[in-house]
């Protein structure tokens, strides 16, 4: 098995063989008590049964559970559709959405490798060639040049960039397209402006829109379920309403103030678009918003229409059609309710999908103003409508910058102004803001958990982030001091949960992850008991 110094052409060779291996001793070092690899959980090995049933030819991890073809003929039948997909990516009719950015990134890479060190996955992995932002892009670029452009076969030979398209290359590329968080740190570093994350997303799009291949968590149990029943969580409208009613009562009792969440209020100023995952996994976030909106006397509403109570849009990660369908639906619901604006809840990719990427899809009266909860909450906090006591938040707090809100949308300071005001022990990570590292769950990985990919998410993709968090709290590393990482994004919070469970960080370091709204409510004078419960209930 090859470990390092992978050649571009290796992607097509030895179809059943694993291309590389991740060795836990080669990963970047973490601060104590996480510095002894023998004390860490390690990676789950693939079982013999999995190896026989599934395609396991990449790196010892499997995210997509692609069944093994039963014959050579079955393997070969995917080559033609893949080439057809490559050509469609280059056509104005089928890919006007990203054609210009794609061509610019395909045609002008100087192969200088300047972007590599910006990638937390590549660096954390011990600089494994497979995870270079440039590796999958270069494979893809060479395939396009050879198979989708006129005279490609001859030109590839002349240029010395020949590459074979076969089952090995297709299946490995599919799996490899989900070893990237789409965080775009590599794009920031590129002096020419090439965007390897965009290329990765285009590759995922080809698999989804042409071959019909996509991770079930993003597609069947993601966008398809969302458009059918309302949410990838499976939560139906009536259940969502019941859940929130129960939470209203529960939190009213716990906080001593009456909480009432409005539903489907026509003509409200604000349609608040939470992620339904917050209802199930972080209900305190949803309740914190209700408390703040009511206390600030905002005219607001939630929607119970499919999928108006779930702002996620996994189409952003893999498929333009699904992206457009979900975004259009969200806008239609807002229009029907006649709201003045849509406020994105604490969900990073929802921001990017609806505020910017879909901006040029929502034409006419669907183009309803859309705003981040960051500016919305900042306005509430500094409006003077609510009294705060920052001493109630006197514990170490650091801020995680969700890539889709900060690096992609440039919303950097509002959340910091809130934290500097309300959290006396707020400290930054290094680096932070638009240079911050992804949590390791970006690009849809946070909700993917098939086979053994969870170990990769925590052990490789999330490793750089854990290092950053531990360093930010290095003045009180032990569990005796409760420490709060403010991660104002559902997917980031889910990923932190995975990381903390994997490393035992809650027990060993006393780190707790929550959102921004909870911290604000925790500092409200009228809230008598601590709103943040440090994961104790």
């Amino acid at each position, binding site marked *: 098995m090859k470990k390092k110094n992978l050649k571009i052409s290796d992607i097509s060779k030895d179809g059943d063989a694993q291309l590389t291996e991740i060795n836990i001793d080669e990963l970047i070092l973490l601060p104590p008590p996480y510095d002894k690899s023998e004390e860490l959980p390690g990676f789950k090995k693939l079982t013999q049964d999995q190896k026989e049933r599934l395609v396991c030819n990449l790196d010892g991890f499997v995210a997509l559970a692609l069944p093994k073809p039963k014959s050579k003929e079955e393997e070969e039948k995917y080559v033609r*559709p893949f080439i057809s997909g490559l050509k469609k990516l280059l056509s104005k009719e089928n890919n006007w959405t990203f054609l210009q950015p794609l061509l610019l990134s395909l045609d002008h890479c100087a192969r200088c490798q300047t972007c590599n060190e910006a990638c937390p996955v590549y660096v954390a992995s011990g600089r494994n060639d497979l995870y270079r932002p440039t590796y999958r892009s270069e494979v893809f670029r060479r395939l396009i040049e050879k198979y989708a452009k006129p005279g490609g076969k001859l030109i590839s030979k002349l240029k010395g960039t020949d590459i074979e398209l076969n089952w090995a290359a297709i299946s490995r590329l599919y799996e490899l397209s989900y070893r990237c968080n789409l965080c775009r740190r590599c794009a920031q570093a590129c002096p020419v*402006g090439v965007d390897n994350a965009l290329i990765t997303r285009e590759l995922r799009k080809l698999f989804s829109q*042409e071959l019909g291949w996509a991770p079930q968590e993003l597609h069947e149990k993601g966008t*398809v379920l969302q458009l059918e029943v309302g949410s990838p969580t499976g939560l139906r409208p009536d259940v969502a309403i019941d859940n929130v009613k129960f939470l209203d009562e529960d939190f009213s009792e716990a906080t001593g103030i009456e909480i009432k969440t409005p539903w489907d209020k026509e003509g409200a100023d604000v349609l608040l678009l939470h992620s339904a995952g917050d209802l199930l996994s972080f209900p305190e976030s949803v309740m914190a918003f209700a408390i703040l909106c009511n206390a600030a006397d905002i005219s607001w509403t939630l929607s119970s229409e499919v999928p108006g109570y779930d702002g996620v849009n996994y189409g952003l990660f893999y498929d333009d059609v699904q992206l457009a*369908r979900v975004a259009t639906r969200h806008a239609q619901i807002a229009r029907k309710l006649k709201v003045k604006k849509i406020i994105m809840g604490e969900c990073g990719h929802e921001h990017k999908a609806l*505020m*910017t990427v879909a901006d040029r899809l929502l034409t006419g009266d669907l183009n309803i103003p859309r*705003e981040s909860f960051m500016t919305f909450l900042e306005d509430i906090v500094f409006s003077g409508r609510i009294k705060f006591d920052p001493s109630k938040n006197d514990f170490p707090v650091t801020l995680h910058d969700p890539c889709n809100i900060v690096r992609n949308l440039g919303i950097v300071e509002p959340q910091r102004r809130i934290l500097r005001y309300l959290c006396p022990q707020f400290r930054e990570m290094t680096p932070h803001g638009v240079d911050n590292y992804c949590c390791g769950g970006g690009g849809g990985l946070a909700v993917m958990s098939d086979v053994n990919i969870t170990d990769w998410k925590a052990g490789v993709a999330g490793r750089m982030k854990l290092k950053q968090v531990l360093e930010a709290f290095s003045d009180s590393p032990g569990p005796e001091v409760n420490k709060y990482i403010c991660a104002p994004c559902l997917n980031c919070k889910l990923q932190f949960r995975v990381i903390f469970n994997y490393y035992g960080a809650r027990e060993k370091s006393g780190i707790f992850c929550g959102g921004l709204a909870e911290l604000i409510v925790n500092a409200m004078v009228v809230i008598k008991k601590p709103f943040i419960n440090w994961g104790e209930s």
Partner: protein
Amino acid sequence: MSGIFWHIFTFSAVCIFLILIVYRIISIVRLPVHLRWELAPIPHEKGKAKYGGSYLEEYEWWQKPRRKSRIAPIIYMAKEIFLLKGVWKNNRSLWPFSFALHTGIYFFILTLILHLINALFIITGTPLYVLNVFKDIAAVAAVMGYILGSLGAVGLIFKRALDADLRLFSSFSTYFRLVFLAAVFISGAFAWFYSGDFASEASLFVKRLITLDAGITVTLPLAAHIIISLLFIIYLPLTDMVHFITKYFTYHAVRWDDEPQDKAMEEELSGLINQPVNWSAAHVKSDGKKDWADIVAGESGEKEKP
């Protein structure tokens, strides 16, 4: 070689270069408007660019006036183009060679401009002391360009061959273009040192070119340098080295394109979403006739186009 050869060859090469470059630019400009894909930091964000902030940081941003800087993107780009700031920050070991090569190219271009100015001075009978000053500047710029360019190109060949990170991504064509660049600069350096008065010789060559004087004669080293350089500029637009032009688009048309949808864009978008789509996956539900709007509207609840 007779004088007419130089005219035909030079003007043909320059024309081919310009045609190919214009073709590449037009083919990029004519691509349809794309979905937004901006990336912070965006330097035109006045007062916010230094930390990567954008207008989306404003409460009800659509009610606020946009505060855009015209000069900041130019400064950002100038640092990128002339100092290779991104490479300095993210790939320090590559920077010396890349910086030398790029600076060599800039001096080379400056030298060409100076040769052209000097030729015009000769034609118009500008006083000799002015011409001599410009010739001296041209001579210095030329030798600096040739030396830096040679060092950069040769350095990059070795760097690519010896550095495992770069070797992996270096194909025959990568080395070919570096060798080609090295040939341009080394032949220039040789011609400069071989010639007693390189700037005068080159200016005279340009003068005879633009006055269509058939009596062009050049020394063999300068002839070799001119031929290699002209072949190179024909080759250049066919490679990814055109990033000196396309960089404008990767930055301004993608990374820094944060313009919200407007009326003019809406018109173009309406045309785009009415094009037929024929992706094959079942969930797309395309029959080769349905357009983008039908495909999206059909699944998004209300049966209407977005």
